[in-house]
């Protein structure tokens, strides 16, 4: 952002990421984002409920293609996201220093952890069915098979802390199994989320699989929780009171709700809880010998 050699600074406009494109908020609103030390960094788009609605439409449109892709292909694309993220390591580290006030060394470690997290989940893509599916013994001449299938469109409220690692840790498990998602980025530190969107947009990830909104969780989450075309909601970033209200709204169309214990350690190996949260089991009966 500085003026080098008399050049005019070229500043980035931080917009939303919806359907593979970077639109401004339909409301035209934006808000000032400040660093951990209170220095003005940039203006970010302040998404409205209509942006959330548009994002759900984009996610729904992307669902058949993404859930129909082979697990192997989805894993490859997630791995590709990791490759792209690795290539922008320095940019993300600098953004994390600004956003979180961490040391440059710590910021580098957080970016590395985010890359590793993507690779870790990418590996799960073609293993979920083997680990969480089953061949069930039944009292009849049938093969009885259960396989986990994606739920559909999942709304994700990203954690306010961990603007990159936390964000990657909530997005990757949702999409690796074939869901598409609408993510409300950290209100406090949304800039790494939009930079991550640039990574996603150049990673062969079909448009609409991940849609990122920046703005207030308290404004957007209730609309997503009540939306009849959203199949699941991850309330990680919601404070207690908001999470309770969202959970109540989500009951209207029996959304799958994931509400983890607060204070999750993003640096720890995650386990499969997030992966399993937005899967549903399909059981097939097939006659034996025909």
């Amino acid at each position, binding site marked *: 952002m500085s003026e080098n050699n008399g050049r005019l600074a070229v500043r980035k406009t931080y917009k939303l990421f919806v359907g593979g494109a970077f639109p401004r908020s339909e409301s035209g609103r934006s808000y000032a984002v400040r660093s951990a030390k209170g220095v003005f960094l940039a203006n970010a788009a302040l998404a409205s409920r209509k942006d959330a609605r548009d994002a*759900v439409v984009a996610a729904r449109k992307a669902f058949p293609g993404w859930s129909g892709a082979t697990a192997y292909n989805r894993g490859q694309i997630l791995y590709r996201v990791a490759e792209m993220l690795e290539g922008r390591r320095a940019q993300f580290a600098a953004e994390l220093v600004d956003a979180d006030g961490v040391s440059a060394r710590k910021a580098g470690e957080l970016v590395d952890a985010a890359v590793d997290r993507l690779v870790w989940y990418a590996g799960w893509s073609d293993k979920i069915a083997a680990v969480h599916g089953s061949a069930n013994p039944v009292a009849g001449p049938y093969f009885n098979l259960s396989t986990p299938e994606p739920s559909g469109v999942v709304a994700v409220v990203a954690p306010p802390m961990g603007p990159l690692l936390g964000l990657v840790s909530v997005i990757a498990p949702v999409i690796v199994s074939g869901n598409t998602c609408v993510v409300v980025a950290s209100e406090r530190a949304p800039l790494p989320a939009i930079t991550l969107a640039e990574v996603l947009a150049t990673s062969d990830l079909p448009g609409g699989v991940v849609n990122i909104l920046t703005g207030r969780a308290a404004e957007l989450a209730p609309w997503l929780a009540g939306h009849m075309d959203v199949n699941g909601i991850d309330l990680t970033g919601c404070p207690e009171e908001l999470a309770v209200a969202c959970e109540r709204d989500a009951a209207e169309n029996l959304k799958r709700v994931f509400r983890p214990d607060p204070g999750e350690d993003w640096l720890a190996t995650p386990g499969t809880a997030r992966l399993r949260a937005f899967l549903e089991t399909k059981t097939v009966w097939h006659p034996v010998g025909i």
Partner: protein
Amino acid sequence: MSILTTSLAEVASSDATLRAFLHGLPGVDRVGADQRAAVLGTRSIKTTAKAQAIDLAISMVDLTTLEGADTPGKVRAMCAKAVHPDPSDPSAPRVAAVCVYPDLVAEAAAAVAGTGVKVASVATAFPSGRTSLEVKVADTALAVAAGADEIDMVIDRGAFLSGRYLKVYEEIAAVKAAAGEAHLKVILETGELATYDNVRRASWLAMLAGADFIKTSTGKVSPAATLPVTLIMLEAVRDFRARTGRMVGVKPAGGIRTAKDAIKYLVLVNETAGEDWLDPAWFRLGASSLLNDLLMQRQKLATGRYAGPDYFTLD
């Protein structure tokens, strides 16, 4: 210009007088029409006005199925939806009409009998219109005999574009005679007419020949209905009433998929032709997927939460 003085009764006496009249119509300012339609499309219609607009739009829908794969079962299902668009909410108005191919008219007429929903049938070798006048007239007469209240005919675009206006005029008049009591909607297929001037001429030609409605498109050609084309047709029906005292309806069809689009059309009607046309008797929306979006918006206004397509019928 002669257009202001010519008696309309004599206009169709020969190809030459008809051409002189149609080419004497003032030209359409394309940029102006596009701009006007775009500006009217930005009107903000909210809350109670929106609720009223959505209900009005539902009551103007000609619920349409014109697929080669149509079956009597599909037509019955569509008719049930036409009568009760939202089974979970009896306050949802019924649609204006169902629109089907001629061989399915009897099925549709039986399904909507006594409900107030009209049966419209496309006829005259829809969608191309490429057949002899005898076949077109027979097609129309059979559809009316089977119980159609409204006939949607296509004009011979080939004849129109090559300047044989009298042929187009006589075909419309012959089909109008065959339709008898049934309302005649004349499809101009504006996507094939190339210019806005032609849209204006075709509108006047159809109205002079006795059309009760002028309709933009078959839905089989892209572009189908657009706002500027509908604007020009609305101006034509307005001017025609001023000239003759007879009111003609307008029906944009094809490509109208969202409640937002439908409301833009209603604004256009109100601002161009006037409030008289804001009635299912004078303005229709030919559509199939539009109805579900209108119902979803209606439900959003009623419940305060965004609706999902999973809760409405597939059609």
